[in-house]
């Protein structure tokens, strides 16, 4: 690409910048000023490149994080008409100071603006929302208000205390690939499944992660950072009061259906027999009309995930509808519609019973 080409490209980049800040900081005040007009270019709040002019005589120049680092920052260098542009592999870190060094001598410093948002993170909800849980509780979800950092280990920020004995204990399964959703704002934590399944070696060695009759507190530290590098607003706690194990599969036949009236967009209420897995409950249900067509609308969880509300986009007709329930729907103990999580069902029986979905009918009347 010739110089004109670079300039056109540069103008294009500049015209797209949401922020185009000029930061000239701490330019080295040595006798011979070798780097000047240093500018950090921002796009969508990210420091995507740095531009500067350099006088003759600079033999070696590389960018380092300020301090003792001897590893240069990786990136691409473009020669501009009046200077140079350095585009790092990943945007420069917010609030970080950098040095341009030549032959081991610091020629200039620059600092990248701190994060734009000062909004602290929040732990919006912990599922299950009810404190009372079965002894064989399989998983909890932490739903945050914004995407969380994608580095570090989640379990470093989570502690569990057995309040009955006053000791910190380990209940969650450590996984190399943490189970986040795509937005990285919801984390799934499994209570160690190997300890929940009766007679597995982890179960024999360590016993159940939580025990009936005891109380536990889950502490989530405010030190956990959001993707923007902000802490959480506060430390969070969640109490668990453990009751007897749940050894029953969810049975849709025992659910209560409260249909709304016809000709309106009223909410359909489905009351489960027990609190269900929050994430799966929102995914596992669909509504079909009398012609077998899917009814568009949205599901919202009710109190303690023991009920779910469906609000249709269009008015209900006076006809029979069906609720289609995927068999993967689980209660809080990991029991789904086909099988108990901890069961001695032999392979053939298990497969014979397996069906993909279940149906419940209800009728809309006046």
């Amino acid at each position, binding site marked *: 690409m010739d110089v004109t080409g670079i300039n056109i490209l540069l103008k294009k980049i500049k015209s797209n910048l949401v922020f185009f800040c000029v930061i000239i900081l701490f330019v080295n005040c040595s006798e011979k000023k070798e780097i000047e007009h240093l500018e950090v270019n921002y796009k969508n709040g990210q420091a995507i490149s740095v531009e500067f002019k350099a006088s003759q005589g*600079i033999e070696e120049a590389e960018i380092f994080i300020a301090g003792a680092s001897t590893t240069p920052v990786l990136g691409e260098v473009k020669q501009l008409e009046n200077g140079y542009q350095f585009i790092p592999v990943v945007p420069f870190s917010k609030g970080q100071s950098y040095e341009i060094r030549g032959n081991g001598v610091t020629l200039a410093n620059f600092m990248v603006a701190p994060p734009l948002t000062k909004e602290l993170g929040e732990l919006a909800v912990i599922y299950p929302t009810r404190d009372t849980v079965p002894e064989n509780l*399989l998983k909890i979800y932490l739903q945050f208000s914004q995407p969380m950092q994608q580095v570090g280990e989640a379990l470093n920020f989570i502690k569990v205390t057995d309040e009955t004995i006053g000791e910190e204990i380990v209940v969650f399964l450590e996984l190399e690939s943490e189970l986040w959703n795509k937005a990285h704002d919801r984390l799934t934590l499994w209570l160690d499944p190997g300890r929940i399944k009766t007679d597995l070696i982890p179960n024999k060695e360590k016993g159940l992660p939580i025990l009936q009759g005891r109380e536990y507190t889950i502490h989530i530290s405010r030190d956990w950072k959001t993707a923007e590098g902000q802490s959480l607003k506060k430390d969070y706690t969640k109490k668990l009061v453990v009751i007897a194990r749940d050894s029953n599969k969810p049975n849709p036949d025992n659910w209560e259906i409260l249909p709304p009236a016809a000709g309106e967009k009223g909410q359909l209420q489905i009351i489960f027999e027990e609190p269900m897995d929050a994430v799966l409950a929102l995914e596992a249900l669909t509504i079909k009309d009398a012609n077998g067509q899917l009814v568009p609308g949205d599901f919202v969880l009710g109190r303690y995930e023991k009920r779910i509300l469906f609000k249709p986009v269009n008015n209900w007709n006076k006809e029979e509808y069906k609720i289609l329930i995927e068999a993967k729907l689980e209660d809080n103990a990991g029991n789904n519609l086909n099988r108990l999580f901890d069961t001695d069902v032999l392979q053939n029986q298990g497969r014979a019973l397996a069906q993909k979905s279940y149906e419940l009918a209800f009728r809309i009347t006046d």
Partner: protein
Amino acid sequence: MKKLIYLGALSALTVLTISATFNDTTSDLKADFIYGDPEIASIEELAFGPDGILFIGDTKNAAIYALDTRDVSEKASAENINITAFDEKVAAALGTTQENIKITDMAVNPLSKTVYFSVTTSEGTPVLLKLNGDKLENVTLKSISYSKIKLQDPVAVDAKDRRERPLRIWAISDLKYHNGKVLVSGLSNKEFGSTFRSIPFPFTDTQQYASLEIWHAAHGQFETHAPIKAFDVINLEGADYLMASYTCTPLVLFPLNELKEGVHSKGRTVAELGAGNSPLDMISYEKEGKKYFLMSNSNRPVMRIKYETIANYKDKITESVDEPYVSRGVAYDNLPFPYVLQMDKLDAGNVVYIQRTSDGDMVLKSRTTKWM
């Protein structure tokens, strides 16, 4: 400034060289590759195939990518590696400090013996780096020759009622290339379950979902939902086996030729490796005519098992283990390497690994298999 200009010129020259040699490095396997930005959203797993092809497991996009690294010059052996404060070095190369990065995987190109690393930043930007001497280099993910396959949901039901339906996420837990197939294991972030896929390469529309069943020692039951954490393919007495290690401890063998669509394969549990532990990486190597198998773990040292021990273990664990803390099945040796976070075979005589030392330092080291 010459160095900067030199780097710029080198990049331009590299592009020219790549263009000039495009046909030279294109094998049949790369015939369907396209050049451009694959828009990789995350890198959880790396695995090399033939001809410098690097497979990338992207959980966020629920996809596997095959990248042409063009790193195809063959080298018999690698240089020794010994880098301390490796996480600091990686972070500095990305213009940040170590608390803002995570090394998600490491893989060695079996042709060039070059070590590749996938790294993520706190904001989730995926980066691919490779080691050149003691220096790190960036491998661009923006303009590269690649092919891609989306991981279909094997149990999805048709649901078009909602305007937005969340994509099912399978956290890709391991990835290997073996004999024309990309093998992928994954954990669900919702229900307790796992998938194991065998995907023919070059990618077509075919994906095979093997239904794997294992016997849980002590539990006295067959288990089809347990998540595979790490696996390798090993050859025993002329037959290939999938050696799968599970989150809930057992080590299980499945004949590879049985892993076919619609075939329900029952594994042979050959070892129970103890509780409170999660397997991380599995590799095989040969020493003095004998084959060995290594497994790194989250809470145990690296375990070594001899192939012949596995081959000679004709039994399977199908009975209860009554006594706690007793491991069962094939014997293994604990090697004096705890907290090995990543591990791969470097060359015929060396292994490379990333280890957190007792003083908290993260080191990248090679080590001769003579002492392993």
